[in-house]
């Protein structure tokens, strides 16, 4: 929120510098996001009196003698058409800084420093300035908008700094207001805090006015939807003369970035900024039926707002109606039909409190955000509702732009704007803070906040002003005390009274970390991808319409379609990551992610969905193959002290003959394989890629397995190499299974050679294995292993038609 220092000073004396004030505000909970001097870029510009002004022949220029008080008298060339002898203008002395403008003299193109120059042979020591060159708009100073020199008032003293005259010596605080302090969304609200933190007196703006005896006979206000409008105040103003607002008001609006429109409209804007209460003014001539009615809109009812937009409403929207039709969208914007025009002579002022949730909903559903709706959404208090109307009526009188009638209608649901009593225990307050605060400090702070404190022993009695709706119980008091007393009084302690607790990670997290480290040791880098993905990712994976992965939870309000579904597989994000890497020239790499996939019980959600911890590995580059990825899978199994088995599998996004399902104790827990070539092509992959996914939840049963020791064999082990010939279709896995089942003393089976070709019959291949045999209870007899081999060969022959290679 923008707060000009000059405006604050109306309501509190500020004797400190803007920088000190910034620190003070910061320390009590109001972060100043930006502090800016209005004329920060302007320096060295003073009042200049043009004593003589002679045209330079054959040009539009004049050569002037400019008197600048104690700075001296200078010869300056000037191209403006309104330069006159005897006139007073801002003069930028040599070394001054002003804005540089483009050829149109209106567009600012940066800041320049004035140097001595020569124009058409005439020395020029300085520059006479326009409003634009000083960053002053018409609203800041009348005449500043003219495309020529800015004319200073007659009484300006030559040599005097122009910044105070033009309002360039002000400071704007951009303050961020936390959600618990909607009462500070105004000049007055900030002024109250400044007074409290500086130990100064806060002065309420003038609220007095005189009602005439004139009444608007028969005028009524009815609030049908009291739940959405707890307070509505209307006041009738007549003899209105629409015109311009005075300079001081226009300048203040301009400082906050509001254009001046007309006195009545400006008053409503001014009061909103000053008091934090949005106001509205209806042209009474266009109110039919001599009535205001606050009600929910009817289904399909239409309104055209001041900005000429038409909206179709429903009963969730609150409207202000006259006796016949909607004339305003409550809390958001007035209706075009009753707007203030140059011809307006009677006005109905509105100051109301609307339910913030309803204003938010309406504003969101219609896509219409205004300053008023923003204030209502954060919350407006009734204290301001009442006083804002008084302030507006006061300004009507001060500006002399209308007469205040005695028709004042106040529909109230029974809330008081009187302070409410609150009692708290000082000990409880101190227990929150952990430090003792001297009684006189508590009294001072509470008094500065206008809480009218009384201390009686441990009991602190406060009168909480109606605008402090956030004050509820002792922790709130503790916060008020400490933010004013200073957080630097908090003494660090390390839970001296707390009991000792055990710090530890759950087993699942430890296992997962072990897995991550194991994968890193294999050269894989951990990735984190968004938990949401795109429907097009499901298409990338060629998943059929009935695939379970298509049962993804949809976000109701995604940022865009690309981020609209909760992931049901991690593979798509991984493939995209590989593609991005390859596009950046990383043609070789190993990536992995451990994240959740989301499996809904039903859609739309009626209960928490399953969040299944899943591992995805993606590898790519010329050094990788199906088997290097399988090596990573084996490392996963080792991490959990388990064994995987593999069987061919079909996945629409994988190579049909280089893909395997991964099984643990008979259950399929995942897959691995080479990325199908059409998918790779779609991703512009330049080298082969392989992907693996394992549902870690399905391994959870093995999470309690721990490392254990098997005693070393007591008796010597033996090994045999067997070269076997078989049909090409027989798999290594089948052979291993038969061997394993044939002999209980097999310790390991290791394939070391595969051969197809000349020395082997057509349609056959040779596979050579090293078998290792471990004796159990007693040493092998000389012929034991030979008997095992014989049995193995017999089983291989019978079951798979495998022969020993001759």
């Amino acid at each position, binding site marked *: 929120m923008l707060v000009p220092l000059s405006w604050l000073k109306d309501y509190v004396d500020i004797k400190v510098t803007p920088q000190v004030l910034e620190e003070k505000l910061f320390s009590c*909970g109001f972060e100043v996001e930006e502090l800016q001097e209005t004329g920060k870029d302007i320096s060295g510009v003073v009042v200049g009196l043009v004593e003589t002004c002679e045209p330079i022949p054959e040009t539009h220029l004049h050569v002037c003698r400019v008197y600048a008080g104690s700075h001296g008298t200078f010869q300056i060339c000037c191209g403006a058409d309104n330069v006159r002898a005897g006139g007073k203008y801002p003069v930028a002395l040599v070394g001054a800084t002003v804005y540089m403008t483009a050829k149109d003299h209106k567009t600012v193109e940066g800041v320049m420093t004035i140097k001595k120059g020569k124009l058409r042979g005439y020395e020029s020591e300085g520059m006479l300035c326009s409003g634009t060159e000083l960053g002053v708009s018409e609203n800041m100073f009348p005449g500043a908008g003219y495309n020529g020199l800015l004319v200073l008032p007659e009484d300006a003293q030559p040599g005097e700094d122009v910044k105070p005259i033009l309002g360039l010596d002000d400071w704007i605080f951009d303050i961020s207001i936390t959600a618990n302090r909607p009462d500070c969304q105004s000049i007055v609200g900030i002024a109250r805090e400044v007074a409290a933190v500086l130990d100064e007196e806060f002065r309420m703006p003038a609220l007095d006015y005189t009602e005439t005896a004139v009444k608007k006979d028969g005028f009524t206000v009815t609030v049908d939807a009291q739940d959405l409008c707890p307070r509505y105040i209307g006041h009738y103003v007549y003899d209105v003369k629409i015109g311009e607002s005075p300079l001081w008001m226009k300048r203040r609006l301009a400082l906050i970035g509001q254009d001046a429109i007309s006195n009545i409209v400006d008053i409503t804007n001014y009061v909103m900024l000053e008091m934090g209460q949005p106001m509205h003014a209806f042209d009474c001539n266009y109110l039919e039926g001599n009535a205001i009615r606050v009600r929910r809109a009817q289904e399909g009812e239409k309104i055209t707002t001041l900005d000429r937009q038409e909206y179709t409403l429903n009963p969730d929207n609150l409207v202000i109606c006259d006796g016949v039709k909607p004339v305003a969208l409550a809390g958001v914007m007035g209706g075009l039909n009753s707007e203030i025009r140059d011809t307006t002579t009677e006005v109905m002022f509105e100051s109301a409190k609307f339910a913030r949730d309803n204003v938010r909903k309406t504003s969101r559903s219609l896509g219409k955000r205004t300053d008023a709706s923003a204030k209502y959404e954060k919350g407006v208090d009734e204290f301001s509702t009442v006083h804002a109307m008084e302030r507006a009526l006061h300004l009507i009188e001060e500006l002399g732009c209308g007469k205040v009638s005695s028709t004042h209608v106040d529909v109230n649901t029974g809330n008081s704007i009187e302070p409410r009593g609150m009692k708290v225990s000082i000990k409880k307050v101190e227990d929150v803070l952990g430090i003792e605060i001297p009684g006189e400090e508590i009294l001072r702070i509470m008094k500065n906040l206008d809480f009218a404190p009384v201390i009686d022993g441990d009991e602190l009695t406060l009168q909480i002003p109606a605008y402090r709706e956030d004050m509820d119980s002792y922790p709130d008091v*503790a916060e008020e005390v400490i933010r004013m007393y200073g957080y630097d009084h908090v003494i660090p302690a390390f839970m001296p*009274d*707390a009991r000792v607790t*055990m*710090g530890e990670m759950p087993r699942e997290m430890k296992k997962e970390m072990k897995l991550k480290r194991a994968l890193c040791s294999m050269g894989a*880098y951990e990735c984190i991808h968004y938990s949401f993905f795109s429907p097009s990712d499901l298409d990338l994976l060629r998943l059929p319409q009935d695939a379970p992965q298509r049962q993804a939870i949809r976000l109701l309000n*995604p940022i865009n379609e690309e981020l609209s579904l909760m992931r049901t597989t991690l593979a798509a994000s991984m493939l995209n990551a590989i593609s991005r890497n390859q596009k950046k020239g990383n043609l070789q790499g190993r990536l992995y992610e451990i994240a959740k996939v989301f499996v809904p019980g039903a859609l739309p959600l009626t209960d928490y969905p399953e969040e299944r911890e899943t591992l995805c590995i993606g590898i790519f580059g010329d050094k990788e193959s199906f088997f290097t990825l399988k090596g990573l899978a084996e490392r996963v199994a080792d991490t959990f002290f388990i064994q995987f088995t593999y069987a061919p599998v079909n996945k629409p996004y994988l190579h049909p003959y280089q893909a395997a399902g991964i099984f643990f104790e008979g259950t399929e827990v995942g897959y691995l394989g080479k990325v199908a070539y059409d998918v790779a092509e779609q991703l512009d992959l330049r080298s082969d890629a392989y992907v693996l996914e394992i549902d870690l939840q399905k391994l959870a049963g093995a999470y309690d397995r721990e490392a254990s020791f098997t005693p070393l064999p007591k008796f010597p082990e033996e090994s045999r190499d067997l070269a076997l010939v078989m049909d090409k279709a027989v798999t290594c896995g089948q052979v291993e299974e038969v061997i394993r089942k044939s002999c209980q003393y097999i310790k390991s089976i290791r394939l070391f050679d595969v051969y197809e070709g000349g020395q082997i019959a057509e349609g056959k291949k040779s596979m050579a294995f090293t078998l290792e045999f471990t004796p159990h209870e007693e040493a092998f007899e000389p012929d034991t292993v030979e008997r095992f081999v014989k049995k193995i060969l017999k089983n291989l022959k019978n079951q798979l038609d495998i022969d020993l290679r001759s």
Partner: protein
Amino acid sequence: MNDRLASIRQEILDGIEAHVESRAAAFELRKQFLDSKTGKIGQLLKEMKSIAPEERAGFGKSVNELKEWAQQRFMELDEKMKAKELQRRYESEKIDVTMPAEGVITGNLHPITQIRNQLIEVFTGMGFEVVETREIENDYYNFTALNTPKDHPARDMQDTFYLSPEFLLATQTSAAQIHTMEKKKPPIKMIAAPGKVFRSDDDATHSPMFHQLEGLVVDKKITLCDLKGMLDVFVKKIYGEEATTRLRPSYFPFTEPSVEVDVSCFACGGKGCKLCKGTGWIEILGAGIVNKKVLENCGIDSENYSGLAFGIGLERTAMLKYGINNIKLLFESDLRVLQQINDN
């Protein structure tokens, strides 16, 4: 005879001096003299018969002396050859040590995981238990129980992704406070991690998904002083022994009082630099004393117990600590980024 002995001795010396370059050559040379059958010294003993009996003892002694002497010389020669051969072998294996390394490539944990582990280490060391969080929450746990009822303006502080009127993507890890307090009675000391959270925000400093680490302590007599003391320890562990903290007022619906916590700028030590925008301080986390309504929502007696809570943004911590300039880099899996942060 003695001449013969002397000439053999000279022959040996000459042989050793002259041609021997390898252990094999040395062995061959040795054989010429010391082979039990054909060696020249052995041959001398065969001539024993032709020596006069009274000279035999003297002759035998002289031959044995020669033999011992020769054995000693050939042993030395062998040692010398051994050293020579070793030297040759080393020379033959000379390499250019400035050639590139051949290493096993080791991957890295994600920078967020690295930071998370560092934080977990600090907090478990302080006796905090680690719990996991959900990514999908319901309205009650994400908002209502955290003192943010339906019409509360604080709901606007966090642009929420909704999945249904009831379910949403967690906007903060604070829901873990409620889940923990519902399950456990005080004393509670927990951190929730890794904590993916989501807000509808997408620009250079905001990502729609990011990570928080939530902390909660509930016990008797927990105060703002404990919060400050705990955070002082924490920042020293993460940002170095010189780091100090500053608390300043803020607002979160689930804590009262609420504070923003700044750490003294670790780049300039508080003097003011580009990183801290000249202030000497860097905002690192939000914290506060647990709102007593939140305790009561979880059935904890707020008269006797109080708590502190804090939430740390992991992306922000990682970006500050490692100088990563764009949050998006953390989610793009660019190997050139992942390879750099090796603080595992």
